[in-house]
């Protein structure tokens, strides 16, 4: 399989076409803007919290297939997780797309998110994949300002 077909796998294309949890949550406990100033990709993330548990999550925005699919897949994985679990996933995902964590050999909790591992072969696209995760991280930390991938 070439690098390109690993990047644009059917699952990713499907999430791009039909993003899951593409919705606004009103009222949301956390609402966080994410922005990639280099390319203009933009995301708004909504969280409904039950104590430390992410009870519901939704997103809206515009971006490439990688950023949209990554956001969509993230929402499916993150729903029902605690804040602490989400932070572990954020760190693991970040390390995976930067090529610091090999999902084949290193322990992780990423499940089907590993399908995005192909991004590590495309340095220009790493920020596309990680925008939603940076935004989640900022939302959980309670930042108010727009999160940037820079």
């Amino acid at each position, binding site marked *: 399989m070439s690098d*390109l077909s690993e990047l644009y796998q059917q699952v990713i294309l499907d999430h791009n076409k039909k993003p899951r949890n593409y919705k606004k949550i009103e009222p949301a406990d956390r609402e966080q803007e994410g922005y990639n100033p280099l390319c203009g990709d933009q995301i708004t993330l909504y969280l409904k919290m039950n104590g430390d548990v992410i009870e519901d999550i939704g997103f809206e925005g515009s*971006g*490439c297939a990688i950023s949209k699919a990554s956001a969509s897949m993230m929402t499916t994985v993150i729903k029902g997780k605690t804040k602490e679990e989400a932070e572990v996933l954020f760190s693991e995902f970040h390390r995976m797309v930067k090529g610091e964590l090999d999902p084949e050999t290193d322990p992780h909790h990423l499940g089907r998110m590993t399908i995005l591992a192909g991004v590590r072969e495309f340095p220009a696209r790493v920020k*596309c994949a990680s925008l939603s995760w940076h935004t989640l991280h900022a939302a959980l930390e309670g930042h108010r300002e727009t999160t940037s991938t820079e």
Partner: protein
Amino acid sequence: MQVAFEPEARVGKADFDVERIRQDFPILKQEVNGHPLIYLDNAATTQKPQIVLDAIARYYQEQNANVHRGVHYLSQLATREYEEARFKIQRFINAAESHEIIFTRGATESINLVANSYGRKFIGEGDEIIVSTLEHHSNIVPWQLLCEQTGAKLRVIPINDAGELLIDEFAQMLNARVKMVAVVHLSNALGTLNPVKRIIELAHSREIPVLLDGAQAVPHLKVDVRDLDCDFYALSGHKMYGPTGIGVLYGKSELLNAMPPFMGGGDMIASVTFEKTTYNALPAKFEAGTPHIEGSIGLGVAVDYLNSIGLERIGAYEHELLEYATEIIGAIPGIKLVGTAHEKASVLSFTLDNIHPHDIGTILDDQGIAIRAGHHCAQPVMKRFGIPATARASLAFYNTKEEIDTLAEGIRKAIEVFS
């Protein structure tokens, strides 16, 4: 030089030997991702001909010394080469005096120089600065900074759906408060060639100075600053087959003389005491510190190279190529061309139904094709068209119709991946 300069030659495909020209650019010989490189990102930066690369190497091998300082042989040699480059650029854009050519780091610094130096002296609270919707961020932000500092107001010339400036609206915007009109000559995002002569006439009828951002225009068409009668003209070396880190500000002598220095340092002074410093004459007044000597020399050689082919021939060939690309790419189902001005050069910006420009860019890169995907540092243009980004193929005279055909195939492949 490999190509003879024939100003009287009939322009046409027959006498434009693109394969021979491609031999002058060593980088074009390489493969990317297993495919021959197809470089269509020329509005971001152009590739360099071998003679420019040789000039830079020769400078460091045989001529390196600081300029305007030494009595010794090498310093005089370096100074002569550096100043010769200034003459070359003066002749290239037909400036009246060589001291009207100020070396900067690029078009961005050139515009910042005018905004800071001219702006802080001659533009104040309540005054207005006019830019256009088509501007690159480099011709927006320096003026916004000036507005913040002075209380002046930024006004924007609107465009139509084709990406053309609305000149009648511009004429209406002119009034006694307007102290500067700063517009792009050739739009980097859409390829629109603006009617700059008309803009200058209108502004000058009210004695308003005009700055043209010529970073994109200079490599594609013959620019004559005296014929245009612009007051300032900014250009970038790396977008005209020269090195990065070197650019030019052209300014009319009387304006440059009336302006205070932009940066202070060595070379820009006549004498310094702790009580008072007097400034050097033009152009040194605006060239503080040791300049980008090899960059200037390299740019001078790039100008020689462009002259050897002739801007008229370059423009004619590129026009033919752009028309071909517009037809071939425009015919692909789902393609929407962004920027369809009547007067255009070099740039083909487009979007594709349901495929984001970044994904197009990655899929094309996999086939060795380099394009730009994004907002092109012109976010207000994107906002005008209600899109976050475009894919942009920008042409140079070393590109070929066969490369355009391969681009079209690449776009079809992207459509296939996403189908």
